[in-house]
């Protein structure tokens, strides 16, 4: 189980990093979202993995999953929505304003090769 979660975090991070390094806004936004998942799961996993013991207090149960990382990640998820929305808006505004969705500053208009 630990291996599965850890490798999922690794795969999502790798995918996120790769997409963030792309040249157009949309894949970069997708990359940021993917990184967000990875980070949230990573933070969540800092409470270690517990199956079948949600932190809802019951009279006859004493073992629970760690509630604190869950609370922190919950707000992180909501905030990351806000952040994604702002980034999308900025990317969209830039595209509508210049008809260009490159992430990098384009030195000359005719340059299509993104190497800088």
């Amino acid at each position: 189980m630990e291996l599965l979660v850890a490798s999922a975090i690794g795969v999502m991070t790798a995918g996120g990093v790769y997409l963030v390094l792309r040249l157009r806004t949309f894949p970069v936004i997708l990359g940021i979202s993917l990184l967000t998942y990875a980070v949230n799961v990573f933070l969540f996993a800092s409470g270690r993995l517990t199956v079948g013991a949600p932190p809802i207090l019951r009279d006859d149960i004493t073992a629970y999953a760690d509630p604190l990382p869950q609370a922190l990640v919950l707000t992180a998820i909501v905030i990351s929505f806000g952040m994604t929305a702002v980034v999308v808006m900025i990317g969209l505004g830039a595209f509508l304003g210049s008809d260009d969705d490159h992430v990098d500053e384009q030195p000359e208009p005719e340059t299509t090769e993104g190497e800088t």
Partner: protein
Amino acid sequence: MSLFFIVALPFLGALLPGIMNSAGRAACAGVTFTVSLAAFVGLLTNLPAVLAGEVVTARVEWMPELGLNFTLMLDGLGFFFAFLILGIGLLIITYGRHYLSRDDHMGEFFTYLLLFQGAMVGIVLSDNILLLLVFWELTSLSSFLLIGYWKHLPEGRQGARMALTVTGMGGLAMIGGMLILGQIAGSYDLSVILQNREAIQADPLYVPALILILLGCFTKSAQFPFHFWLPHAMAAPTPVSAYLHSATMVKAGIFLMARMWPVLSGTPEWFVIVTTAGLITMVLGSVIALFKHDLKALLAFSTVSHLGLITMLLGTGTTFGAFAAVFHILNHATFKAALFMSAGIVDHEAKTRDIRQLGGLRTLMPVTFTIATLAALSMAGIPFLNGFLSKEMMLEETTHTVLFGVWWLVPALATFGSLMSAAYCFRFIGHTFLGPVRDDYPAKPHDPNAGMWMPPALLVVLVVVIGVAPFLVQDFVILVAKAVIGGTADLEVKYIKIWHGLVPALYMSVAAVVGGLLVVAIFKPLLKIWDAAPRPEAKVIFEAIVETAAAAARGFTHSLHNGAFTRYAMIGFVAIVAAGYHAWATGTVGAATRDLQEAGAVPIAGWAMLVASTVGLVFLHRNRFLALILIGIVGLMVSIGFVFLSAPDLAMTQFTVEVVTIILLLLALNFLPKQTPVESTALRRIRDAGVAIAGGLATFALAYHYLLRDAVSTPISEFHLANSYKGGGGTNVVNVILVDFRGFDTYGEIIVLGIAALLIYALTETLLNGPVRRRLLNRLPDQPRAGDMHPMMMVVLTRVIMPVVLMVGFYIFLRGHNEPGGGFIAGLVVSIAVVMQYMASGFSWAAARIRYPYHGIIGAGVLIAGLTGIGSWFVGKPFLTSDFTYVRIPPFNEFELATAALFDLGVFQAVVGAVMLSLESFSRLAHRPNTPESDHPMDIDPSRDEAPPVVPGLEKEGG
């Protein structure tokens, strides 16, 4: 009057001239004068106490932990300077009112002047060196505004910048020096520091502190090698020059040296640095002044020279030197302010200050001539004028001062400096006022009105009175000198004499005056030599240095910050991985303490889907719709993972956020290209993949390692689990943490969320009000439109389901404290219900039915949450302390009422408002207000294509 008022009055009064500006020039100058006069009178009310030898203090604790207190003190020295600042300030205000032309914004001028005045008074009355530093910086800033007052003149702007750069850098050095001094003395209070002479001078950090503080003083008082800024500051209006350069700004450095005299002076380091700098400045300034043709430049360099003289006197470290310095400060302030104002009058009336175009003004401007001549003769050191007395004392002091082991060095240089000083004074008089009347003045000169000549005349009266009857000010000067010396030594001077007998100083004086006359007589040939001689131009050097520094900074910044986001991201990722690797390689890793848990078939299947969709996303991301579906699958798998790993709240949040995020991205994709073109080279892709794989491996390794190890110490979650029900009254610990234990954190989060939504709204507004609007209106859809904009089934379904969804949201909200749910999740669920209406029935239909603006909902949410928190104050508890009780209303079961629920209501509203405002803003980009749009379902467009290609997600563009 309390010292606080004396300092505060100019600052408070600074508001008035701006307000009174439209009331006319007289009113504007009048309020400024009144404010200054009030402060001046307030100062005078403290005169009896000061004369009695008391030290008036006022103290308010500001930040005692930092040693920063608002403490003021008024002793002889402080009184002396405050008197000069406010007294000459009054004269300057009167003069300035007549000097400024109708085109100048008078309110602005007097506001700056009062700010500056307040800062200066603050410096001289501060008893805390940190407070003093604050005022010190304020003088730099306000003098910047004053010097650059004529914004249309490039010289004014350049001069102001140069003054700010030089004095600002000096101020920075001085902050360091003062902090060291405070550390040594163990207190930042001046009164304490002044008692610790031995401890400070014995400290190994004494020399660094001394040098840093002197840097501040020398830059402010324009001592060599920082003397160059002062003449360039002459681009300011003359009242500013007269004020800054006679009594205030440049005297601040002198004041501080005098203030610190008891603790810093008397050491060889002090003697050599201060005396040498003063001597060089005095000689250099007087030589340059002689050859300046601009009256104000001449006076500026003469100020530099006289400041050098005072600095040198303070540098000698003897009590007689300190006494002479104080006396010369007084005398210099009187004659120099009068001279500046006279130069201003000449400039004002003759429309030129170039000495080569002047001459013969004696008969045309007799009043100005008398004032200027008396003041200049005093500066030259002619007997029966006050300048003679202090200059004589200075020469006397130099005969006892031996620098570098050469007995004649200081007296000879001082005599030479006096000689040049006398020469430029004679030139000032001779070349401006004497000689034949010319017929080529730019304007016809005549004496100005009394408002302009009265202030300098008043000062010249003082010049003569002090010169003839020095005993009138003798006691006061002795009092001030004693304040400078402090308790360290006795002052042996008892009175000021005009006639000392045939002492060396007298011969030196005579030599200076005679030599000065000779120099003026042979001025023309001297000027030729001077003009032919090469000499460095300070402004060019200064600008070269600034340009070099700016170019270096630009080169450094631009090489890192070149507009390539991918490059920053790449550097960031590599740096993070490298830092992590370093920590990993140098740290130790403990043995695993937890066992691997078995994973059944279902988790493996979920994992496989997540990995497959992530990999697919990376390879297929160029097809943007497909990428959106794939990332949706990733999010879904993450939510299911949360369910499986005992985090139902997270799963619900992730799931609902997933929905709104995908809708958001679809709305954006409506405008963006649907494909990502291939641009990067294969090499680049391999490089990026390398970085990505390194990052992925790093997070995998880190996560895997800590998942197999227990926390080093007991997590605080134990506390939360134990107290959730007892203290918070809820069994859903996650929700109790959110609304109770860490409520303040949550409060911050909803505010951030609200700000993000408002930011999106603001950006949308900007886009819609800019050139983008036209482009949006003329834009043709790049995808085929659905003929059936509002499909009947969807409209009916969403409208029917709406109450049900709202009910579910309400339920989730209410049970949140004890079961999975709560404000965040309920907010998201309700948002989805509303978004569905937009999607199914169109923007116009839904927007027409929204009763409250979304901003208001966000605001109400934050307000409710905040007020709930404040409510606990009324029962004497800290912010956001919660309380709860159980009530039973038949026929319902017993249920819980908690203030936390009210807080959660705020969270709920903020989330609904923020989500809806974001999504609505995106939709508004596509909305065309002027196109008729049907409200009704089944509005089939007959002009549609025969067989529109079905693209997933397209039907969400309804509107």
